[in-house]
């Protein structure tokens, strides 16, 4: 009888429905409004004129590609920094794990504006390591800043990836076949954590592509400062940019999810049974 009571409560979840519908409305309304607004550039009709305008604009393409290159370089540098370190700590230096984990989480605690403020003062004019004195060096500093921003996500992704494989056995097997340390990292460990790295990379990309604070304070021609400028100068293009940004974020997250759930050596397009195992995995985790 009690069971039936519980069942009845579950069959008539009016309160749940209203909460969820309210939340869905709050989430979807701004997206709809933005999309509708972005179609209104030509008076009296709905058109994709704002999007055409953007893709015909050199500043849009230049700033977007600048940020894409900076993000990709940061992902590359972050991978080169994090993968060997995590591998080494897991294999030979478990006592350093606390330090590496703590250092990797620091960027979540120290706001980016403080980090870049420190750079400008410590590596400014007359420093022993001047990094703000030319455009090339400022570009380098921006990439370094993005590596710092990416550190927590890259670390977590790679660390989880390495926890899933038996690196000690893999290393011993490679060693007994005569592989050098570098060779082991490049051709044994790396392919096994590639999915984890790519997952971390897409998360990083979604964060750094539209990043504003660091790029603006270092006066870089990046996408973030361009967005703010557009918001001040135009009405309809910013709405179109917001829609594009949402689509890019969605794509990054979907790809991240896809690669994070992928097992080492799994094919890119999973078969149906593989889909089922990932679903089960999701429930377990």
């Amino acid at each position, binding site marked *: 009888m009690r069971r039936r009571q519980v069942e009845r409560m579950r069959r008539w979840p009016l309160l*749940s429905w209203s*909460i969820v519908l309210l939340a869905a409305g709050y989430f979807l309304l701004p997206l709809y409004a933005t999309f509708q607004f972005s179609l209104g550039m030509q008076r009296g009709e709905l058109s994709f004129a704002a999007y055409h305008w953007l893709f015909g604009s050199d500043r849009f393409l230049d700033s977007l590609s600048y940020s894409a290159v900076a993000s990709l370089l940061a992902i590359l540098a972050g991978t080169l920094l994090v993968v060997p370190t995590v591998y080494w700590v897991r294999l030979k230096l478990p006592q350093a794990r606390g330090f590496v984990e703590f250092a990797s989480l620091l960027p979540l*605690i120290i706001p980016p504006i403080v980090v870049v403020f420190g750079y400008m003062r410590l590596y400014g004019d007359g420093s022993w390591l001047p990094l703000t004195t030319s455009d090339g060096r400022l570009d380098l500093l921006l990439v370094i800043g993005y590596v710092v921003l990416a550190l927590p996500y890259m670390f977590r992704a790679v660390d989880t990836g390495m926890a899933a494989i038996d690196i000690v056995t893999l290393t011993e097997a490679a060693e007994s076949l005569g592989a050098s340390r570098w060779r082991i990292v490049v051709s044994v460990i790396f392919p096994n954590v590639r999915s984890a790295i790519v997952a971390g990379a897409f998360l990083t990309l979604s964060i750094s592509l539209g990043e504003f*604070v660091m790029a603006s304070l270092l006066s870089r021609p990046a996408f973030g400062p361009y*967005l703010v400028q557009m918001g001040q100068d135009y009405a309809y293009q*910013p709405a179109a940019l917001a829609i594009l940004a949402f689509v890019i974020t969605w794509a990054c997250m979907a790809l991240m999810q896809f690669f994070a759930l992928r097992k080492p050596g799994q094919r890119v397009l999973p078969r149906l049974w593989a889909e089922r195992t990932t679903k089960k995995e999701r429930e377990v985790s």
Partner: protein
Amino acid sequence: MAHRLLRARADGASLMGSPLWRWLGLVPFALFVLLFLILPVLYLVQGAFQTPQGQFTFDNLRALASPTIASAYSLSIRLSLVSAGLGALGGLLVCYALVHGGLPAWLRHAFTTFSGVASNFAGVPLAFAFIATLGRLGLVTVLLRELFGINLYASGFSLFSFWGLALTYLYFQLPLMLLIITPAMQGLKREWQEAAESLGASRAQYWRRVALPVLTPSVLSCFMLLFANAFGTLATVVALTGANFPVVPILLFQQIRGNVLYNPNLGFALALGMVAIMVVTNLLYFVLRARAERWQR
């Protein structure tokens, strides 16, 4: 010959195994973290305790209590509290409805997926989306005026004010809460409710005596994370208000750009204050989360 080769390999191996050599493997990472994370922050901390001439002083920290700066901290903290509170409460309700409300499973998947995107959809584009929704010409503003005769902006609401910003922050706070509270919500076992009911407890009693005490540490730890998330938010405010809304990150941003405080070392103190608040918030988060995880085994 072969013998000598083996010896060389063995020597190499013992060299690789020596403690010093092992620590060498950490050098690139440690150097990077030292140069680009620890030293820059220490430099600011040191500067916060110095006059522009380099003498030791507490004046900069004392100057944080001056009206302009104290009100910026107060505004930042209030905005973070409000947006984290609304986010935590809203996220909790939605999460409860999705996990225990008897709704179809696809709805929960849809919300989880969307939350992953929305919690990362912050910064400048988010500001644009809200301008198109609740700005002076935004869809909701116009519809309310034309259909219901309600003039939002005449009644005192502005997207570019405290409550407008809080409502905008909610767009990434609520999904974040939903994502991080879900494990705790799933940890509320149905057996507990059944056990409480079979002992004669009402639904309210179950909530007051069982569910809420178990959930509280999780909710508080998530609240801390949301607070830190809001406190550091800068790009959204810049895009919404053109850097004219004096929260702490905005003040620091203007100080870095143009020394608006007329004392470079005061900027260092401002940064130190931000770091201090973030450290305290994150410490509370870790402590509370450790308490919360007891129930999630």
